[in-house]
């Protein structure tokens, strides 16, 4: 009877519940290991490498096979360079995961280190070598805001996808194109099914699905143009001072701002008009193809070295970037918000024409100021412009003209035109943390400020200040749409390879846009044009618009005492210098927006930068034809 009981028990285990136990047995026996895929590479429009993978060797450790961790680490430290930070991280990693999973001790071993550790590996129980990939950015900080950077999985990633924990070599795109195109750049992880014994030691490989490399992407950026535009923007209108000079070395000791730039890798030191040593200019330049929307250059300075993030960012580097006074991690082109200032005047003029509140030939008299309600609104030219029509209002950037037509048009119609020209909404350029900016209307004010819109605010909006905020890339898109005249161009970071993207029609009359173009042309070649010194006659001319944006309100007393020159104010209180333009005039190809933070004036700071960049583009295109 007892014997029958035993057979019954065996039946229960081996027949009735067999499937269940088979699953448990498989779970014991097999270990799935994921194999890293090389990340897709990024190239510029000419196939030059922007982000690639270099093969590196990393030293890993299997905690289960290390008896005395401290002694093991001490031994390894004799062979390779391990910082206290590294040690702390290794110990944390070991504590965080089961002991049969590998922990990265150091990645990116130098040839010397590799050789040293490899020779001693037989006596370093638990040491393992792996070939891994390190993300490299040959252009470094120059293209950092375009490419973005990658970094190891953090606690948040792991809690979303626990498998990431077991992939110490994996890098995730954090910003720029690396982030946007993460799904296709990442590729497919390979899978190795390994039979493991009870001690966690692999016995044999059963299944091997190789990793699929990520997709390579050609970006629309032209690295040479990017480099030129970057250098040109940073130099502004100052002289370069060699770093080795005694006075520079002295200044670096005393001047925190200069030191912040130099320690984050930006070694350009300038001498301004007053003879002071200053860091390079900050700001953004965006060059866009007005037909395809391809971004040919996107500069945002200061910048950072994305290579720093590929390994493990040291605390020191992180602190330097974090404490930098000019936020180098911010991509000003898409995330920087600036009042468009006078570059907004095309929008207001177009809205007024469309609304029929004014005709191009109607003249308005500018006497330097404009009384409205209890407030006085000033023109930048205190003496006044006299009678101005629409074209000359753009040419001379008369503020009084725009105060008046803005009032007649109303904020809602201005808002409507601005949105059609690409302002106040994210452009879908495909870069993370793009800002929408603000183009106000009555509802916006009510919703966000809780009070009704006032006509005085329309007056200020007429010259692109007050609530109005835009990003440099939006300004480039606005200019491209005006230049294109037919299509609502959408910017893209990816090379279109000669293909014309399918854009929606721009719902603005071509006659109206023709007026804008005429005014913008006059800015460059009119007798009173605000940027008349910076036309580019050799290459078909430029059409543009300057903008000088006040960042601090000028009080009545200050105005009476006489406004202090920008150059003599503290940097933070100087005006932003803006310039938007397209060229060539008759057969437009490229649009540009230049924003120089606290750069002084649009005409003296931003316009010459745009001029030089256009000259560079057309000159090199001509060279290539010959």
């Amino acid at each position, binding site marked *: 009877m007892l014997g029958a009981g*035993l057979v019954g028990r*065996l039946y229960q285990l*081996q*027949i009735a519940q*067999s499937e269940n136990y*088979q699953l448990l047995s498989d779970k014991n026996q097999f270990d799935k290991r994921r194999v890293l895929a090389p990340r897709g590479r990024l190239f510029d429009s000419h196939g030059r490498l922007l982000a690639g993978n270099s093969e590196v060797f990393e030293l890993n450790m299997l905690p289960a096979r290390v008896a005395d961790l401290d002694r093991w680490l001490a031994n390894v430290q004799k062979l390779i360079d391990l910082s206290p930070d590294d040690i702390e991280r290794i110990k944390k990693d070991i504590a965080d995961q089961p002991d049969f999973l590998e922990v990265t001790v150091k990645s990116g071993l130098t040839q010397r280190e590799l050789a040293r550790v490899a020779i001693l590996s037989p006596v370093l129980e638990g040491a393992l070598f792996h070939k891994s990939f390190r993300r490299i950015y040959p252009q470094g900080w120059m293209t950092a805001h375009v490419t973005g950077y990658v970094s190891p999985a953090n606690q948040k990633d792991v809690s979303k996808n626990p498998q990431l924990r077991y992939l110490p070599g994996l890098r995730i795109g954090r910003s720029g194109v690396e982030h946007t195109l993460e799904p296709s750049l990442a590729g497919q992880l390979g899978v190795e099914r390994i039979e*493991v014994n009870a001690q966690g030691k692999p016995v044999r490989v059963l299944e091997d699905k190789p990793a699929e490399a990520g997709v390579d992407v050609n970006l629309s950026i032209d690295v040479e143009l990017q480099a030129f535009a970057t250098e040109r923007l940073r130099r502004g209108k100052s002289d370069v001072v060699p770093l080795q000079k005694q006075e520079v070395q002295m200044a670096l000791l005393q001047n925190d701002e200069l030191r912040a730039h130099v320690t984050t890798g930006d070694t350009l030191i300038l001498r301004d008009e007053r003879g002071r040593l200053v860091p390079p200019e900050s700001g953004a330049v965006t060059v866009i193809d007005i037909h395809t929307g391809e971004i040919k250059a996107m500069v945002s300075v200061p910048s950072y070295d994305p290579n720093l993030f590929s390994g493990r960012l040291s605390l020191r580097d992180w602190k330097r970037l974090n404490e930098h006074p000019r936020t180098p991690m911010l991509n000003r082109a898409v995330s920087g918000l600036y009042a468009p200032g006078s570059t907004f005047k095309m929008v207001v003029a177009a809205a007024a024409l469309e609304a029929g509140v004014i005709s191009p030939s109607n003249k308005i008299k500018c006497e330097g100021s404009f009384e409205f309600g209890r407030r006085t609104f000033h023109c930048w030219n205190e003496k006044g412009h006299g009678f101005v029509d629409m074209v000359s209002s753009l040419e001379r950037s008369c503020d009084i003209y725009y105060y008046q037509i803005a009032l007649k048009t109303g904020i809602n119609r201005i808002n409507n035109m601005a949105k059609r020209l690409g302002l106040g909404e994210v452009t879908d350029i495909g870069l993370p943390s793009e800002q929408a900016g603000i183009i106000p209307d009555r509802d916006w004010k009510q919703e966000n400020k809780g009070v009704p819109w006032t006509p005085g605010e329309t007056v200020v909006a007429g010259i692109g200040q007050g609530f109005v905020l835009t990003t440099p890339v939006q300004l480039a898109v606005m200019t491209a749409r005006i230049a294109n005249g037919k299509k609502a161009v959408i910017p893209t970071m990816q090379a279109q390879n000669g293909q014309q993207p399918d854009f929606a029609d721009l719902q603005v009359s071509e006659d109206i846009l023709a007026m804008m173009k005429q005014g913008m042309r006059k800015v460059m070649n009119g007798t009173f044009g605000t940027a008349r010194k910076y036309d580019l006659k050799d290459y078909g001319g430029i059409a543009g618009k300057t903008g000088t944006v006040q960042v601090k309100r000028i009080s009545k007393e200050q105005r009476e005492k006489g406004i202090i020159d920008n150059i003599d104010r503290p940097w933070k209180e100087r005006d932003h210098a803006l310039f938007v333009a397209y060229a060539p005039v008759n057969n437009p190809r490229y649009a540009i927006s230049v924003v120089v933070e606290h750069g002084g004036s649009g005409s003296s700071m931003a316009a010459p930068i745009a001029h030089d960049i256009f000259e560079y583009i057309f000159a090199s295109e001509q060279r290539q034809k010959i």
Partner: protein
Amino acid sequence: MNLVFAWLFRVPWVLVLATGFLAMVGALALFSASEGNWFPWAERQLYRAGIGTLLLVFIAVIPVRWIYSWSYIILFGAVLILLALPIIGIGAGATRWIAIGPFNFQPSEPAKIAIILALARYYTSQSPENMQSVIAHILPLICIAVPFGLVIIQPDLGTSAMLLVGSLGVIFVAGIPKRFIAVLAGLAVLMLPVLWSQLYDYQKERIFTFLQPQSDTLGAGYQIAQSKIALGSGGMFGKGFLQGSQSQLNYLPEKQTDFVFTMIGEEFGFVGNVVILLAYFIILMSILLIAVKCKSRFCRLSAIGVSIMLFLYIFVNVAMVTGILPVVGAPLPLISYGGTAMLTVFIGLGMVINAAVNSHVSDNELLI
């Protein structure tokens, strides 16, 4: 010559064949347990089986009279050795072993046979009237209690429990008044708390683990859990010889000794396990048939004693690996790696064969 043939004719060949079969299965199982190597277990096990066979033949051919007359002395010797164990024994913590030449020997195993023989002789000498009195059973109980006490203090819970149950079984078969059974059962229940207080922590833990195996799958419950996984994943026909992943990759502990039945189950499935149990069933059945045919009470009791001992080994082991009983450390006879248990089984079977060929001998002939 005729005499030899007559002798051979009386040998229970079915039992011999089944024993040989199980010994071969054991050797192959040990071959698999060392991942397809004769070394270290299978080879030595075969060597021991050879020695065991010699012992078996020796015990089978000697006159049963000799065994009868030596039985008390054998028990006395066994008790002496058990007594001396703390002095001459080896082993860390639990002193269970003595070294005889190259072999480590566990005296508590053959002590079981000694008890069986002594009890068989004692009850042969008792008249049926005597059996009804309590006094007649006091001496056998002392014969059991002394070695039981010596084994339990070693400490070896599994062996002592099996020794106790097995020898009480012999008394039961010898014939004991029903009222005594009730008294004995009552005494046993009263003994339990005392026994429990004498247990070592690891022994208590094993019993706790048995009661709640899921509580500790990486500690003491690990063995039972892995054993059940191995058996269950074997299914109907098993994963094949040398293909058991649980066994070959060392998830299954003690696969060469206590959990050998599990390994066979993983590699040969339900069918394999049932075939093994069938072979044991054949052995037990033929021993019982021999017992029935024996004229002498001594032969009958010792054969039945051996069968009870064998059955206990088998039952406790299989129940243990399938998770019915706690892990107490009981080998599977003839298959598990381990010299003492194997030799004990061979001695016991030698005794049974001796009884079979001497089934015509009566008690009176033994006394001469």
